[in-house]
C-alpha cells in the first residue's frame, strides 16, 4: 500500500464500479421468521427475486426430517400435516437466544423447542431420523482354507437404516436452511456465491446478529452486511427504477409479518436515508389474518358437512382437528395470494379436510376485508401512534411502502390510507400500480431485492484498500453491536431552505409575497448540495430577476369548513379536501438569508412574454454555511452568488 500513489485529497485510485458484464455473485437474502426470499443480479443488470428449485419465490423458513430425507422450504411445510414433530419452523426468532429467554406458552404446531441435553441453557430441536446404515465391508479376497462355499462377488446389500434421534441447535438449523437458499442461488447463477447481504428485523439484538453471522459462515458464505428491514427498503426506494428516486420525501414502511408488525418512518434526502421513528409490536400479525380466515373456512365446513371442526384456538384440539388446521393453513396461502391479485372470489380446496370429507370454499375480497377489519384497524392504530410519537402529521408522509406477503393485500392499503388520514396523493405501491406482475413495489420481493442491491454495492468497495477501510467500517460496524459507526452519524439542517421569487401570491390564502420553491428540506444531512431549474418570466423592459433565499418552517394548517367550498390548490404536495376539514401545508417565513438580483441577459420572447431559465444551486457545507449560486441557463447568462456566515 505504501508505494501506491494516492491523490492529494487522500482518496484511493478510482475504483471500478460494478459494470453490467461482471457483476459479482452476490445474493440478497430476506430471512423472515416464516418466509425467506433470495434475490440476485441477473444478466440484464437488475436485481431480481429468484425462485428455488420448486419454483417458489416465497420460500417457507422450514426444515423437515422424514426418514433419511431432509426437506426445505415449502416441501417441509407440507410435512406439518403428518410429520409435525419432525418439522422445524419459526426458528429465526430464536437465533442467538438462551433457552430461558424463550416463552413456552404457545402450543407447538411443529417440533417443540427443548433444552439442549449437553449445552447449558441452549434451545434445541429433537427430531427422529433414520440413519443410513454403515457401508458393509467389501468381500474379502482372502479365502480361508476351510471347506466353505465360495463367497459371492456381489456387494453385500446395505442393511436397513436404523432409527436415531438427532439434536439440532437453532444455529445448526439456520445454517442448514441458509445453505439450501445458497444452493438455489448458486444454481441459478451457475457459479459459487461470493457473499451475501441478509436482512434482520429491527428487534434483533447484537448477540442475535452475531449468531446469524456465525450461522451464515457455517453455511459457507461471507456476510457482507446485515441490513435492517427498513434499510433494505431504502436501498430499493432510492434507486432509479423505483420511479420516485432522488426526491426528498418521508416514507412509512409497513411490515406486517407473521410474528410482529414493524413500522419505520424513513426520511429520504437525495438517496440518504435515516430513521425518524420506528416501532415493533407483537400484534397485529399476519398470523391473526390467517386465524380469522381459517376460522371462517372451518365454520363454513361445519355448516356444509355438519362435522365439527375446532381450529385456531388455545383450547385442546384433537389430532384430527390439528391436522385439519395444518391442511387449511397450507391451503389458504394460495387463497390469500388470489385475494391480493384479483377482486374476484378466491377459492380454497382441501382434500380430506376432516373425517375424509373434502372441502371447497370461496371468499371474495369484500368478505375477506370485512373479516380482517380488526387487524387492519390495529395496524392503523399502530401507525397513528407512531406518527404522533414524532409529532408528524400523516399529511407530511409522501409515500407508504409495504413489506411482506400479507401486506400485499389491497384492503390493508385502503384501510390504512383512509384510516390514518393520509393525503390523497400519497404514493403507495397500489396507487402506483407496481405491485402485480413482479413490479418494483411488490411487497414480497422488496427486501430481498434491497439486500441484493446493497450486496453489489458493498462488493464494489475495494476490499483491500486502506483508503476505504473507514467506509467498510461503516458497513460492518453497524451489525457488530449496539454502537453504530461514527461515519454514519451526521449533522442535519434543522429548517427548510428555499427560494422565494417575489411577485403575486402563487396560491390563494398564502402570505408569502411570491412563489416559494423549496430547495433543501429540513433534516437534510450535511454537507448537502441541491440544484433546481425553473422558468421565470421577466418584464420586457427591465428584465430584472430577484431571488430571495429564505429559511422557513412548515406546518399543517387545518381548516374547518362546513360547506366544501373547494378552495384553490394549496401547496402542490399535500392537500385533502374533505367535507369538514381541509389540511394545508403552510410555510412560514422565518428569516431572510439574502437576495440575489440579476438582470437577465439571454431571455427569450415567446408569444409576447419574455422568459428565461434559472438554475439555482444550494450548497450547505459541513460547517452549515450556505452558498447559493444562481445561473441563467444559456450562453453568456447572468449569474449571482450569495454566501452566508463568516
Amino acid at each position: 500500500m505504501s508505494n501506491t500513489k494516492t491523490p492529494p485529497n487522500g482518496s484511493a485510485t478510482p475504483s471500478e464500479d460494478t459494470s453490467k458484464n461482471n457483476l459479482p455473485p452476490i445474493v440478497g437474502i430476506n430471512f423472515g421468521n416464516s418466509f425467506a426470499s433470495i434475490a440476485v443480479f441477473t444478466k440484464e443488470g437488475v436485481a431480481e427475486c429468484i425462485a428455488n428449485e420448486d419454483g417458489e419465490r416465497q420460500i417457507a423458513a422450514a426444515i423437515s426430517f422424514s426418514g433419511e430425507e431432509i426437506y426445505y422450504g415449502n416441501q417441509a411445510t407440507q410435512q406439518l400435516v403428518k410429520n409435525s414433530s419432525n418439522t422445524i419452523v419459526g426458528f429465526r426468532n430464536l437465533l442467538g437466544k438462551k433457552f430461558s429467554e424463550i416463552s413456552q406458552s404457545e402450543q407447538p404446531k411443529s417440533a417443540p423447542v427443548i433444552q439442549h441435553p449437553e449445552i447449558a441453557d441452549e434451545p434445541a430441536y429433537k427430531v427422529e431420523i433414520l440413519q443410513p446404515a454403515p457401508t458393509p465391508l467389501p468381500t474379502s479376497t482372502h479365502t480361508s482354507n476351510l471347506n466353505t462355499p465360495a463367497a459371492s462377488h456381489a456387494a453385500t446389500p446395505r442393511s436397513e437404516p436404523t432409527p436415531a434421534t438427532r439434536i439440532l441447535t437453532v444455529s445448526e438449523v439456520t445454517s442448514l436452511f441458509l445453505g439450501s437458499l445458497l444452493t438455489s442461488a448458486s444454481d441459478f447463477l451457475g457459479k459459487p456465491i461470493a457473499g451475501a447481504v441478509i436482512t434482520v428485523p429491527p428487534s434483533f439484538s447484537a448477540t442475535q446478529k452475531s449468531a446469524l453471522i456465525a450461522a451464515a459462515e457455517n453455511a459457507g458464505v461471507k456476510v457482507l452486511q446485515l441490513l435492517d428491514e427498513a434499510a433494505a427498503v431504502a436501498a430499493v426506494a432510492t434507486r432509479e427504477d423505483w420511479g420516485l428516486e432522488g426526491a426528498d420525501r418521508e416514507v412509512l414502511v409497513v411490515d406486517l409479518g407473521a410474528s410482529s408488525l414493524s413500522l419505520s418512518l424513513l426520511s429520504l434526502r437525495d438517496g440518504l436515508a435515516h430513521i425518524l421513528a420506528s416501532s415493533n409490536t407483537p400484534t397485529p400479525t399476519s398470523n391473526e389474518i390467517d386465524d380469522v380466515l381459517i376460522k371462517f373456512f372451518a365454520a363454513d365446513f361445519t355448516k356444509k358437512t355438519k362435522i365439527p371442526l375446532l381450529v385456531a384456538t388455545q383450547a385442546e384440539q384433537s389430532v384430527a382437528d390439528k391436522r385439519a388446521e395444518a391442511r387449511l393453513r397450507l391451503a389458504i396461502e394460495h387463497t390469500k395470494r388470489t385475494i391480493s391479485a384479483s377482486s374476484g372470489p378466491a377459492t380454497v380446496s382441501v382434500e380430506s379436510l376432516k373425517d375424509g370429507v373434502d372441502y371447497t370454499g370461496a371468499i371474495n375480497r369484500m368478505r375477506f376485508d370485512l373479516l380482517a377489519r380488526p387487524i387492519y384497524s390495529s395496524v392503523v392504530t399502530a401507525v397513528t401512534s407512531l406518527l404522533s410519537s414524532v409529532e408528524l402529521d400523516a399529511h407530511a408522509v409522501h409515500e407508504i411502502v409495504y413489506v411482506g406477503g400479507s401486506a400485499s393485500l389491497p384492503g390493508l392499503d385502503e384501510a390504512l390510507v383512509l384510516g390514518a388520514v393520509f393525503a390523497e396523493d400519497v404514493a403507495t405501491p397500489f396507487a402506483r400500480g407496481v405491485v402485480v406482475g413482479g413490479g418494483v413495489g411488490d411487497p414480497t420481493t422488496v427486501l430481498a431485492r434491497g439486500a441484493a442491491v446493497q450486496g453489489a454495492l458493498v462488493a464494489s468497495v475495494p476490499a483491500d484498500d486502506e483508503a476505504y477501510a473507514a467506509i467498510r467500517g461503516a458497513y460492518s460496524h453497524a451489525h457488530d453491536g449496539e454502537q453504530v459507526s461514527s461515519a454514519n452519524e451526521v449533522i442535519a439542517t434543522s429548517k427548510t431552505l428555499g427560494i422565494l421569487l417575489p411577485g403575486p401570491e402563487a396560491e390563494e390564502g398564502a402570505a408569502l409575497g411570491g412563489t416559494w420553491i423549496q430547495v433543501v428540506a429540513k433534516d437534510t444531512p450535511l454537507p448537502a448540495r441541491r440544484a433546481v431549474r425553473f422558468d421565470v418570466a421577466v418584464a420586457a423592459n427591465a428584465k430584472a430577476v430577484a431571488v430571495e433565499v429564505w429559511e422557513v418552517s412548515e406546518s399543517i394548517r387545518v381548516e374547518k369548513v362546513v360547506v366544501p367550498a373547494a378552495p384553490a390548490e394549496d401547496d402542490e404536495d399535500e392537500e385533502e379536501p374533505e367535507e369538514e376539514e381541509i389540511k394545508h401545508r403552510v410555510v412560514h417565513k422565518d428569516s431572510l438569508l439574502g437576495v440575489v438580483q440579476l438582470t437577465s441577459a439571454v431571455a427569450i420572447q415567446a408569444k409576447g412574454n419574455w422568459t428565461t431559465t434559472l438554475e439555482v444551486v444550494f450548497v450547505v457545507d459541513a460547517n452549515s454555511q450556505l452558498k447559493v449560486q444562481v445561473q441563467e441557463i444559456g450562453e453568456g447568462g447572468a449569474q449571482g452568488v450569495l454566501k452566508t456566515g463568516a
Partner: protein
Amino acid sequence: MATVQILPVTVPALPTDYAPPVASSSISAPHPLGHRVLLPVGQAHLNHLRLALHHAHDFDAFDAHTATEREAKKKLLAAEGASEDDHGVGDEEEPEDLLALDPKEWKKQDHYAVLGLSKFRYQATAAQIKIAHRKKVLKHHPDKKASGTPNETILGININQNTNDDSFFKCIQKAHEVLTNAEKRRQFDSVDPAFLEAEEDIAGVTASDFKNKKLDFFKTFTPIFELYSRFSRAQPVPGLGKLDATKAEVEGFYDFWYNFDSWRSFEWWDKEVNEGSDSRDDKRYTEKKNKSERARRKKEDTAKLRGLVDLCLSLDPRIKLIKQHEKEAREAKKAAAQPGKPAKKTKAQEEEEKKKAEDEAKKKEEEEKVPTVFLDAKKAKAAAANAAKKARREARAAEEAAAA
C-alpha cells in the same frame, strides 16, 4: 455533480416596484452530530462517506474524482467491448423498413443489414456473424415479443396485431443461414446490394467523362479497383498505386487485372423452378435458361471489368510517362550514336555525355529485358500483320514472276 431537479413551473415576473428587503442572518444551527444516524445503504450513502472521508466535504474534489473514475470505467468497458466480447460487432440502428421486411422476399433482403453487420459486409468473420446473430435473436425472438407489445383494440374487438411479429425473426434466421454457408454467402456477396450500389456510383466512368469533367485519374480508379478486388481468388490484389510507381509495378498491376481470376457468380439471380409443375421438361428448361443467363452475366461482368482495365490503361498518365522516358532514352542513345554534332563541346563534356548515354542505354536494355506484354502487344500484332501482308505480297509477286 448534483442532479438538477427541473421544476414544471413558470414564475411570474418581478413587480416593477420591488425593493429588496434587508437580509438578516445566517442559517439556524443544525441538529448536532448524532441526532440523525444514516442507514448504511445505497449509492448516495457511499458517495456521502467518500465525500466526508476522502474529500473533506469538498464537493468540487469529489466531482473531479468521480469524473476520472467514470472515464476510467468507460475506457475499461470500451477496451473490453472491442477486444474479446463481441468482436466489435456492436449495435446498429434498425430502421423501420428493415424491421418491416417480409421473410418471403428473403432473396431480396440485405442479409448483412438484417444481422447488423453493414459496416463489415463481405469482410465479416465467422465469429462476428455468430455473435451478431445471437444478439439479434436475443432481441427479436418471438418469445420475447409476445408480452412486450400490447394488442391494440380496434372498434372494441381485440385484434392481435402481433400475428406477424416473428417475421423479422424469420429474416434473421434466413440471413444467418445464408451467411454461415460459404457457398451461399459467396453467391450473395457476388450480388451484394451495397456492392451494386457502389459499382453504379463509381464504376460507370467513360473516357469522355474524363475529358469533360477533368477527373483525377488516381482518385477515380483507385476505389474502382479496390471495389472489384474482393472477387479475386488470388489475394492480396495489387492496387493501382501512385504516380511514382515503377514500371515493374505498373506492369504487374495490369498483368494481374488482365488475367483477373474472379469467383463472382450469378446463381443468386436464378429464376426458381416453377413449383407448381413437376414436369421434368419445365425444370430442365428453366435450368437451361438459368445456366445460359448465368453464363451471359458472367461474360458481361468479365467484359465490363476488361473494359474498365482498358479504359484505365488508355488514361494512365504513368504509361505516357514511361513511354516518354523510353523515347528520351532512345533519342539520347541516338544522339550518342551520331558523333560530330556536339563538336563544340569540350572533351570532358563529351566524355560525360557519353557515359550518361551509355548508362541510359544500359538501363533501357535492362528494362527491355522485362517482358512488356501489353505495350508491345499491339505493336507486335501490327508488326505481325505487316509481316504477313508483306509475305503475302511477296508470295504473290513471286507467283506473278513465275507466271510471267
